[in-house]
């Protein structure tokens, strides 16, 4: 290992120390040295490990080894690629179906949260990944769905399944309300406006006491029900069975998630999806080709919003409770993180990222107050190591592939 690396190691350790020790060392007003230095030590250990791995990868021996292993690696990769996607999907679906039967209540609950974030991530992916519109207030549509169900069910007794289409309608309207005035905006400006919109919705829910009960929230909504015929009394009667068990709710969320995946995949491959990609890549060129950019952008907002709205209704029904604090700005950020981390525009990437990002805070739960710190560090590390996302969208992968070909041709 070179001397400069040792120097770097000490510099980085010092930097981490400045960053971590004051942050972790003061749980109260007194300095807790053992605690601060343990956490710092852990970070320094990680750093050393990372630098050693990097050093080994750069070394001559590794290059030889890696070159020798390249054919084998390629063979494995080819064999994995030869397996049709269908089989992966079957395994994945089998796992998600069996999961609630073997997992305990806590794990099923985490599973439902994962599925909710999968749907939110995929919905936002339409707006951000396909149409290329940065939306920092996406959680507002989730809130619209939750409150639509809560208010309709509590005030008028409308059952879950009738509230879902209404939720979609309200979500679409909300999407258009934010979409229309921002049509000419892009980038940072759009992000700021959408962020403001998200906050407006939350503050409205928080302050409109008469309608939303303010910060106390609304409770007592009925769970989603299933109507089935019963012949118990000799005659035919219809019985409503409310899905109260966590398992049943899990399966309902799973159905929503599967439908979302199918819907998003179809959109991605459709003419509309192609037009969204064109808008994202070059709006003027898309307009010149006759793409109705205004309508398609509105459609992206409306569709993205309606996915969030549906699952928002489910969320409110599952808890039988909702309050404005579920829909803080942080939630929008997490959903955006899911999209970016998974790979903008990539459905499998977003699914995996959603599972990771909703599971990771649970894994770090033992770290108590520092779990958000660990979460942030994990995010930062991910962005450094894999900036294009966990599973980059095929379009990007193809781009890298072609770039590679070009360099081969030149050499």
């Amino acid at each position, binding site marked *: 290992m070179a001397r400069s690396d040792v120097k770097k190691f000490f510099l980085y350790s010092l930097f981490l120390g400045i960053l971590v020790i004051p942050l972790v060392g003061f749980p109260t007003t007194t300095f807790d040295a053992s605690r601060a230095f343990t956490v710092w030590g852990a970070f320094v250990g990680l750093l050393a490990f990372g630098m050693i791995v990097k050093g080994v990868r750069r070394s001559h021996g590794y290059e030889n080894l890696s070159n020798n292993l390249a054919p084998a690696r390629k063979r494995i990769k080819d064999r994995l690629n030869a397996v049709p996607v269908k089989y992966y999907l079957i395994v994945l679906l089998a796992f998600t179906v069996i999961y609630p039967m073997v997992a305990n209540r806590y794990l099923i609950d985490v599973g439902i949260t994962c599925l909710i974030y999968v749907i939110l991530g995929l919905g936002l992916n339409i707006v951000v990944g396909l149409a290329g519109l940065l939306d920092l207030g996406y959680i507002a549509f989730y809130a619209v769905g939750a409150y639509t169900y809560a208010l309709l069910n509590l005030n008028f007794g409308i059952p879950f399944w009738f509230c879902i289409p209404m939720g979609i309608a309200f979500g679409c309207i909300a999407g258009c309300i934010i979409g229309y005035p921002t049509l000419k905006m892009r980038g940072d400006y759009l992000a700021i406006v959408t962020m403001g919109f998200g906050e407006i919705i939350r503050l409205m829910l928080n302050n409109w006491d008469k309608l939303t009960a303010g910060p106390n929230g609304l409770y007592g909504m009925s769970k989603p029900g299933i109507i089935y015929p019963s012949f118990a009394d000799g005659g035919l009667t219809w019985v409503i069975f409310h899905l109260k068990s966590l398992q049943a709710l899990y399966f309902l969320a799973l159905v929503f998630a599967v439908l979302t995946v199918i819907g998003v995949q179809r959109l991605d491959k459709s*003419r509309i999806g*192609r*037009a969204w*990609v*064109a808008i994202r*890549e*070059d709006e*003027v*060129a*898309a*307009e*010149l*080709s*006759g*793409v*109705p*950019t*205004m309508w398609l952008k509105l459609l992206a907002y409306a569709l993205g919003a309606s996915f969030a709205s549906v699952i928002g209704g489910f969320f409110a029904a599952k808890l039988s409770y909702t309050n404005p604090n579920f829909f803080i700005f942080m939630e929008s950020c997490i959903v955006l993180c899911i999209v970016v981390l998974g790979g903008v525009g990539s459905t499998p990437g977003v699914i995996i990222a959603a599972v990771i990002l909703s599971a990771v805070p649970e894994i770090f739960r033992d770290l108590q107050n520092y779990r958000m710190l660990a979460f942030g560090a994990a995010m930062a590390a991910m962005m450094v190591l894999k900036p294009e996302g966990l599973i980059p969208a095929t*379009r*990007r992968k*193809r*781009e890298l592939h*072609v*770039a590679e070909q*070009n360099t081969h041709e030149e050499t």
Partner: protein
Amino acid sequence: MANEQPILQLEDVHTYYGNIHALKGVSISIPKGGIVCLIGANGAGKSTTLMTIFGIQPAAKGKIFYDSQPIEKLQPEQIAARGVAQSPEGRQIFPTMSVRENLEMGAYLRSDKKEIAKDMEWVFTLFPRLAERLGQLGGTLSGGEQQMLAIARALMQRPKLLLLDEPSLGLAPKLVEVIFETITQINQDSSTTIFLVEQNANMALGISDTGYVMETGKIVLTDKSSVLLESEQVKKAYLG
């Protein structure tokens, strides 16, 4: 041709970018089937003229007639649907779409699959290089190839009127010649009317019938291209 209605006519068109008065009363008339060029220096308002025709930067005042019908209030996609296509400045192609997908985007408004395939064959005879690069992504093409792709994509709309914005920008002189030859060929093959916006006055006047000279948002001179090529004023300002 003289007594026929022009395919495109601009009458006293004014366009603003915020407070900036970019077009100050532009009037242009483009006869059917010909090549008309608009020359002028950087920032004279040439590209703005095209963006205004297409409704992307709408005219604040004035009238634009296409096929004798006013189009200044229409959306870009409606104008595209009527048979106007534009190859934008700076080779704005879709970088992560393949050459084929780029061309398919050009035919976005069309549903006649057979005719689309036929037109694709035709643009490949015009630009054989694109046929070789069919599966390659737009962003990885060379500058000249991207310019060809931008023009080819516009042609996939099967336009009656083709607007070309600075097709020679940043290309090697030899390639510029190839592109201009192809433009003449497009005009002859398909009797597409061409409105060419150029800084390269020499080349543009060489292939066009009529020329307009623009300075700071106004048309300052118009005549037959052959006359403009000999004009002292144009020679001094643009031909050097």
